């Protein structure tokens, strides 16, 4: 219903009520002995017409108010809520989709529910102008449009999906921008943006950090690092940690107000790589930060097949390395298998390998198309920024010869001072990854320098896992551009957007995600909320001067309910006073 229609109906209802009030009803007939005395009384009473007029005026006003309140309750025009009146022109409504918006309020709903309700009021009060709807995580989700149904439908399907970018989405041509937020995540914003706060303080306990890191010494392969915050009154927090469904920790923690507790738990090699932490506490307004996930990728060693005639140096390299399970075969015996990575030692097949491969000084007759140019004593001056080269110290490395290759799929990531490529990676997005080191143990002191285990470790990690399995935060996330598919915990594919040099997607829920590279490599990684800013529901960056939405505590109920209650109370009052002839 358009606003003018709603207001017309309200005016009609009020006018009808006034007409009915003034309409004379058939009075009750009472037979009395004589009108003598009544005549005297009524004649005297006519002198008190001022009081009578006041009574009638009060009754008329109450009747009209009842009609108006009932009309407002039924029609619910947005302009009836004074604080929701929006300006004419294009209106942009930006919803803060931070996880903290899922915090429960005293009224029974969530901050998000209040934000949605407020957005509906703003949209309804837009006076027919265009409306654009955006969230901090998704950017523009609907509009600009003047079709309220589209905005309503978009509001129905929106859910919090993390804080998103720090800057608010910009809506071109917006005459007024409303930002509905709880202020948990501080954001720089323009002075012209009208902030509407849905903040309501709440006690909460949450997991503010959770991941797995390699053990430094000790007998365990890794350790889970856990951080729990209690943002509210002192309470007992029940912590459980399980690995593949097997509980490895069960503790009750007495935590004080504002206390942050850190815990590490050693993880044995082998076993299930999925690790899950969960807390329970009585004062806990936010559920999404009660569970955290981590993927222990070092639980299973990387399966490596080494193909070469003289792999003794690699045997020595992998000996005692529990993270690598190496198998050594000669070129004649090599058959492509299910290994994670193949290392070709100074040999390469005619065609590109079907599995991710690390090549050391491949021969010229391979698919790599060796160039005839060979640089003698190339000088590796600077380490590159590629993950394969991270931590590699080139200064201890002495190279006698380096070969160049002409395959168009190869991209050099490290070069000599003369420009001869020293390390390549392939840039094919839909094929298996490859790393080519243009010199071998015979061409350098590679076997005896610290750079070898670092370079080999990096290369194996990059080849076997297309993505770093370090836990990520939920929300908008950036990935390498080689990632072609991302699967959410429920099995649904996460929509990915290709940007220059990266792929972005929104990780909408905590859990385990599977990323697949173009070459068939898969990486599982965990996504957690794990943010003290989210878990601490007792603070807000929204200033006190900023408008609070009408909902809050008991006021979370819609405004029209108050209109209906007011009408009911007015009817009762009018009836009660009419019975006593206080009003007419």
């Amino acid at each position: 219903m358009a606003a003018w229609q709603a207001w017309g109906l309200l005016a009609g209802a009020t006018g009808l009520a006034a007409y009915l009030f003034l309409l004379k009803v058939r009075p009750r007939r009472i037979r009395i002995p004589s009108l003598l005395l009544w005549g005297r009384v009524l004649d005297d009473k006519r002198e008190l017409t001022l009081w009578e007029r006041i009574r009638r005026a009060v009754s008329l006003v109450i009747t009209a108010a009842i009609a108006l309140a009932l009309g407002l309750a039924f029609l619910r025009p947005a302009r009836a809520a004074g604080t929701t009146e929006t300006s004419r022109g294009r209106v942009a409504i930006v919803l803060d989709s931070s996880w903290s918006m899922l915090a429960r309020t005293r009224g029974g709903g969530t901050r998000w529910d209040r934000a949605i309700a407020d957005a509906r009021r703003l949209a309804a009060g837009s006076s027919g102008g265009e409306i654009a709807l955006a969230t901090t995580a998704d950017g523009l989700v609907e509009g600009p449009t003047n079709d309220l149904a589209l905005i309503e439908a978009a509001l129905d399907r929106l859910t919090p999906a993390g804080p998103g970018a720090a800057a608010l989405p910009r809506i071109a041509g917006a005459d007024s921008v409303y930002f509905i937020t709880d202020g948990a995540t501080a954001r720089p914003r323009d002075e012209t943006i009208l902030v509407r706060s849905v903040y309501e303080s709440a006690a909460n306990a949450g997991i503010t950090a959770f991941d797995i890191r390699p053990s430094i010494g000790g007998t365990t392969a890794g350790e889970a690092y856990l951080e729990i915050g209690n943002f509210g009154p002192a309470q007992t927090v029940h912590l459980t940690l399980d690995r593949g469904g097997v509980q490895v920790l069960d503790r009750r923690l007495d935590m004080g107000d504002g206390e942050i507790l850190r815990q590490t738990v050693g993880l044995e090699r082998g076993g299930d790589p999925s690790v899950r932490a969960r807390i329970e506490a009585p004062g806990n307004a936010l559920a999404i930060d009660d569970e955290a996930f981590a993927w222990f990728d070092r639980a299973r060693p990387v399966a490596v097949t080494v193909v070469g005639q003289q792999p003794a140096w690699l045997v020595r390299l992998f000996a005692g390395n529990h993270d690598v399970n190496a198998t050594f075969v000669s070129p004649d015996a090599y058959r492509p298998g299910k290994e994670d990575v193949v290392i070709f030692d100074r040999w390469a097949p005619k065609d590109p390998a079907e599995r991710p491969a690390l090549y050391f000084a491949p021969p010229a007759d391979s698919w790599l198309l060796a160039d005839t140019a060979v640089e003698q004593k190339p000088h590796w001056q600077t380490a590159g920024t590629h993950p394969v080269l991270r931590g590699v110290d080139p200064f201890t490395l002495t190279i006698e010869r380096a070969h160049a290759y002409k395959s168009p799929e190869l991209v050099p990531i490290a070069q000599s001072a003369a420009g001869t490529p020293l390390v390549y990676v392939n840039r094919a997005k839909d094929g298996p990854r490859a790393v080519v080191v243009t010199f071998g143990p015979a061409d350098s002191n590679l076997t005896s320098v610290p750079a070898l285990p670092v370079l080999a470790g990096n290369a194996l990690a990059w080849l076997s896992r297309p993505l770093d399995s370090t836990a990520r935060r939920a929300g908008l996330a950036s990935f390498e551009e080689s990632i072609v598919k991302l699967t959410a915990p429920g099995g649904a594919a996460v929509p990915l957007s290709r940007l220059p040099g990266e792929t972005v997607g929104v990780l909408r829920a905590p859990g385990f995600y599977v990323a697949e590279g173009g070459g068939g490599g898969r990486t599982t990684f965990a996504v957690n909320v794990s943010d003290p800013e989210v878990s601490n529901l007792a603070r807000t960056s929204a200033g006190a001067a900023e408008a609070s939405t009408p909902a809050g505590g008991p006021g979370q109920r819609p405004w029209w309910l108050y209109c209906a209650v007011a009408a009911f109370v007015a009817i009762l009052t009018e009836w009660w006073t009419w019975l006593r002839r206080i009003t007419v």
Partner: protein
Amino acid sequence: MSLRFQDQFLKKLEYLQVVSRREFAGRNRADRRTPKKGRGIEFADHRQYARGDDFRHIDWKAYKRVNRLLLRLFEEEQDLPIYLILDVSGSMAEAAKFDLARQIAAALCYVGLVHLDHLTILTFSRGLAHESSPGRGTGRIFRVFDLLEKLEAAGPTDLRESLKEFASRSRPVGLTVIISDFLDPGGFEAGLKILRSIGHDVFAIHVASPADRDPGAIGDVRFVDAETGEVRDADVTPRLVAAYARAWETHATELQGFCGRYGMGYVRADTERPFEEIVLQAFRQGRFLE
């Protein structure tokens, strides 16, 4: 409605007597003192004997003392003319009021009949409607009952015109009892003054019911006058109800005050009071019966 009283109540009534504050000459011998001198029991005076006087009334003892023939005079005791004027207008149509008015009339009649008073029963509304004299003796009370039972209340009230009509006929002056609610649009003063001016001892019995004082209505009401059928709309509020109650009390007080100023008797007979209590206590306290 049956007006038959119980024997026990009738016995109580027999001990009562209608009190008139003045002495009136009656028509027949009875036990009421009159201004006349005659053949009563009570000695009144002596006078000089004249020819033709009854020798039996010569006071021979006085003749012996003063040597003159003196005649003994006695007070004449006659009946008292009592006029019971009953309001049968529409305003008395309420059963409780009309029944009480007729019961009072019947009781007064019985008291009068016991004492051989000369009773005349009259009814009025717009004017005098009915007049009858049941005769003398308690046996006539049943005629009174029959008469009263047949009465119906209807029509407008005009007390002045009715009493003017009453006064216009030649009749002995006596005690006039008016049983009415005195709700006369023309006012009660003029009529009562007429009675007073022709020398009657007037006694007003004001019959009232709770419905007179409080109509029991709140809200928009259309009042219908029981006498004239005239209607009047009013929005009755508690304040208005209180004002009406005050107006009614003023009306009753004015009537009582008027009666007091003009030497008339006044008794209020409320329907919520038991009838016997009204007759045996209220009328006695009002010095109407003794």
